[in-house]
């Protein structure tokens, strides 16, 4: 079966995100003060799997082995269809 999976990689809480901070400063310079800003990385993946659980498990392995760095990242997997 074909599945669309979305993987979302974020920094773990408390990990400094210098790029987000720079963007926040740039937004403030444009007149958009913000209280908080964080960034995330999203991968949209189409894959084949036996079932929904299999698609989710494959995407999790992708995160563990390449897409995320366990030292600094947290990841979420959502199987869409």
């Amino acid at each position, binding site marked *: 079966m074909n599945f669309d999976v979305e993987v979302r990689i974020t920094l773990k809480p408390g*990990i*400094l995100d*210098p*790029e987000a*901070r*720079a963007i926040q400063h740039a937004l403030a310079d444009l007149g958009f003060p913000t209280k908080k800003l964080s960034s995330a990385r999203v991968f949209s993946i189409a894959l084949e799997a036996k079932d929904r659980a299999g698609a989710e498990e494959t995407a999790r392995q992708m995160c563990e*082995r*390449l*897409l995320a*760095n366990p*030292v*600094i990242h947290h990841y979420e997997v959502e199987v869409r269809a």
Partner: protein
Amino acid sequence: MRFAVVQFGGSNCDLDAAHVLRDVCGVDTDLRWYKDGLGKGYDAVIIPGGFSYGDYLRAGAIAARTPVMDEIVRHTKNGGLALGICNGAQIAAESGLVPGTFAINAYPKFLCRPTHLRVENSATPFTTLFREGEVIRLPIAHKEGRFMADPAVLAALDAEKRIVFRFSDAEGRVTEDANPNGSTGNITGVLGKGGNFLAMMPHPERASEEVLGSEDGKRIFLSMIRHIEEHG
């Protein structure tokens, strides 16, 4: 004795490293394209600086998953020496050869400048020609060099004397002002578990000739050569 310098697409300090090894240190050195693997046995392997795979995903992340890295892991498990410089250090962290990670600099800008480092451990195969506590001068050139690790990992690195270099001022004081990229504890050189893999962000190959302003880097390569001569 034979050294290998591994080349990935996007490596750009490979020729500098090979030049210093061959022409300055006088040791036989092969450039090895990563797809060709390590081939015959080497006494030491250098993973040079650069932008392997354009730093896509994370610096070093993709190169770390190539088969030649499995060979380098085996090489170090068998006691061989290996040195990861800059992108090579990022690749090593992504491969698990050293713990922790090199995250984007605290001020997210590419930094290219000379730095002072304090030698924290002179009893490693890479630093026997230095004095403990000696301050040396090597340049950095990176945007993702902020060393980070879990507190438990940091404590273990400290206890096992696996921290080799810290950013310091010219007097050897490890201060926040002397920390160019926000690395935890100013750490910028760490050993792998067996003590025979060194990952470092500064570039010793760019400071190995008097004409370049410092020869401190050369002593890292000469320390490796001496270690191989003495231990085979």
